[in-house]
């Protein structure tokens, strides 16, 4: 943060050409510049810190190790980028993860949005409890969630551990996050628009379809993206409940034991770049929409941020 003391006033040493301005030595000037920009510098350093492992993964995706182990830099090659999906186990695991994430996102977004609408728009008996129910899973360590689901499936004896159990688990932990995101979007919503629609004769369903829904769509979309990211990256809960199904993180965990093939790094970078493109596209669309409809920028940008507060 910025320093807490004021700039010390340097005693008058008139410098030619300066006139009535008090002079500063170049060191003092440099120091002042540093202090004013300290926060910015720290922020940039933090961003660099965040991106260091990404840089490493990127570099090592071009590595050309002699044996099976990709731990030290040997030589540069493009061959792994040439056929990143050649490892069938990896590709299969990746597809499983994507399939799982898409399904889990779909289900949890629908269920979560419905819940959010109910919680924000209606008052009913048990609302406090429902709110609490949403929050508790977010506050439970993944180890406990995964382990308790495993106990549940084991005691019931069905379904047998595999894709279905993974799907159930993923939807479960995604719902809360979707609810929180959509809810925050609903709360910031201008009700007068809905009232205007009703004044113009639209029934409740029409109002929802033509006014409410399009306006909360960014929130729903944000919730869906969050659910997708959580699902595709999940390791702990999947480890407990996957049975013999192998998702991408589970594959990596196994591979880490004996040497991750370079293709894994390549795939990780592909995922990263795909997200960059998707985000870039979304931002570009948003800028266009802004220009066309002149919505205030601040309001839009706050939707992309993941809310931790209502």
């Amino acid at each position, binding site marked *: 943060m910025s320093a807490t003391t004021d700039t010390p006033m340097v005693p008058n040493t008139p410098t030619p050409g300066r006139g009535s301005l008090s002079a500063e030595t170049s060191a003092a000037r440099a120091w002042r510049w540093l202090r004013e920009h300290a926060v910015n510098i720290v922020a940039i350093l933090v961003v660099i810190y965040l991106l260091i492992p990404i840089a490493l993964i990127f570099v090592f995706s071009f590595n050309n190790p002699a044996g099976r182990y990709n*731990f030290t830099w040997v030589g540069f090659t493009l061959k792994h980028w040439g056929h990143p999906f050649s490892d069938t186990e990896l590709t299969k695991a990746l597809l499983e993860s994507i399939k799982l994430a898409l399904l889990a996102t779909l289900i949890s977004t629908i269920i979560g949005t419905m819940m959010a609408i109910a919680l924000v728009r209606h008052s009913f008996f048990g609302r406090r409890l429902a709110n609490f129910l949403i929050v508790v899973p977010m506050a439970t360590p993944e180890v406990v969630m995964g382990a308790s689901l495993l106990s549940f499936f084991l005691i019931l004896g069905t379904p047998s551990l595999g894709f279905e159990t993974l799907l159930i688990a993923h939807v479960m932990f995604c719902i809360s996050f979707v609810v929180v995101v959509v809810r925050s979007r609903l709360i910031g919503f201008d009700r007068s628009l809905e009232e205007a629609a009703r004044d113009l004769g639209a029934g409740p369903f029409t109002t929802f379809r033509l006014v409410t829904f399009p306006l909360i769509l960014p929130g729903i979309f944000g919730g869906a993206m969050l659910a997708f990211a959580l699902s595709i990256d999940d390791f702990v809960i999947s480890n407990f409940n996957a*049975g*013999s199904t192998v998702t991408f993180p589970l594959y990596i965990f196994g591979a880490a034991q*004996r040497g991750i093939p370079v293709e894994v790094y390549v795939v990780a970078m592909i995922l990263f770049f795909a997200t960059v493109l998707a985000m870039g596209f979304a931002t570009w669309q948003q800028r266009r929409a802004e220009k066309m409809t002149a919505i205030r920028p601040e309001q839009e940008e706050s939707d992309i941020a993941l809310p931790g507060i209502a």
Partner: protein
Amino acid sequence: MRVAMAVAALALAVAVAGCASGIEGPVESNVEKVELEAKPSGELVISNWPLYIDKKTVPDFEKATGVSVAYHEDINSNEEFFNKMQPLLSSGESGGRSIMVLADYMVAKMIKLGFLMELDHSALPEVKANLAKNLRHPPFDPERKFSVPWQSGMTGLIVNKEKANNVHSICDLFNPEYKGKVDFLNEVRETVPLVMKCEGVDPEKATEADWLKAIEKIDQAANDGQISRFTGNDYAQDLTNGNAVAVMGWSGDAVQLQADNPNLEWRMPTEGCMLWSEDMIIPVGAPNPTAAEAFMNFVYKPEVQANIAAYVNYVTPVEGVQEILQKTEPEIAENHLIFPSEEFTENCSPTPTLEGQEEKNVIKAFDEVLNG
């Protein structure tokens, strides 16, 4: 009304709670025998350890028999795999698999629990002819009714010659000169017996007290910071990165590691090594036991096994392979890690037996050390 329903639900819950909760044990039944069809066909699902087969054997088998193979490398630990499979196997299912490859001691356990199908030897002529003599009558499966060896290996020392050239024995791993640069294995049946050998105890004759004493010694070393980590296969990364200079390691890995770093070398500890084997087994509920036996037979042909041995670099259970490799890949044929002589493995011990309450106590004590 609502209150009454709630009370009823609660009562039901309590009633259910009173019953024994259902983590089921083994189904008591007669041993299932393989019933062979005339010809192998269909699909064969195999579960094996990673990097345990070459690239040609599976396609060659598919071409030779017309069976389509789904080869999964999803076994990373005997215990974890067993725990994953146990609920399925108890209800007589195998999750689609027809072959699994697990260590001797795990196979012994599964035989006792009735999880394996009994093999029909009439479909295994190559095995009968070529199985190494010293593997024909193991104590846990004297007639090889349930298991066919896949590969064997040795657990010993892998050492960075440049930095720790003086490590020649398990006891040397406790030398404070290498503090924090030593990895031990996280397998109780390999690490503890090796340490027992350092103490002068023969693992096959060890008592529970001997086991616990050795575990005590390991605990001490871990708390002092002598042992950096307990690892599975991932000691390889530590050696390559310089995080460790001497580890307990497996013979097959060493050959691979040397390709990346010629300073790394597998050494036979002066006290001797641990010898282990992994076996192919057919679980109950296997969908395609005929194809499974065909595969087992196929890999016991010396020409096929030669390809596997050349890639995997562990000790092959098939006779006749060394002669073949002498003509095609002589360095491998001469490698005493892949074809160890009798005198080389003189002091080596097989995996010791641990059962019942002794097993529980030892595993519990060792896990406490692993968990810090």
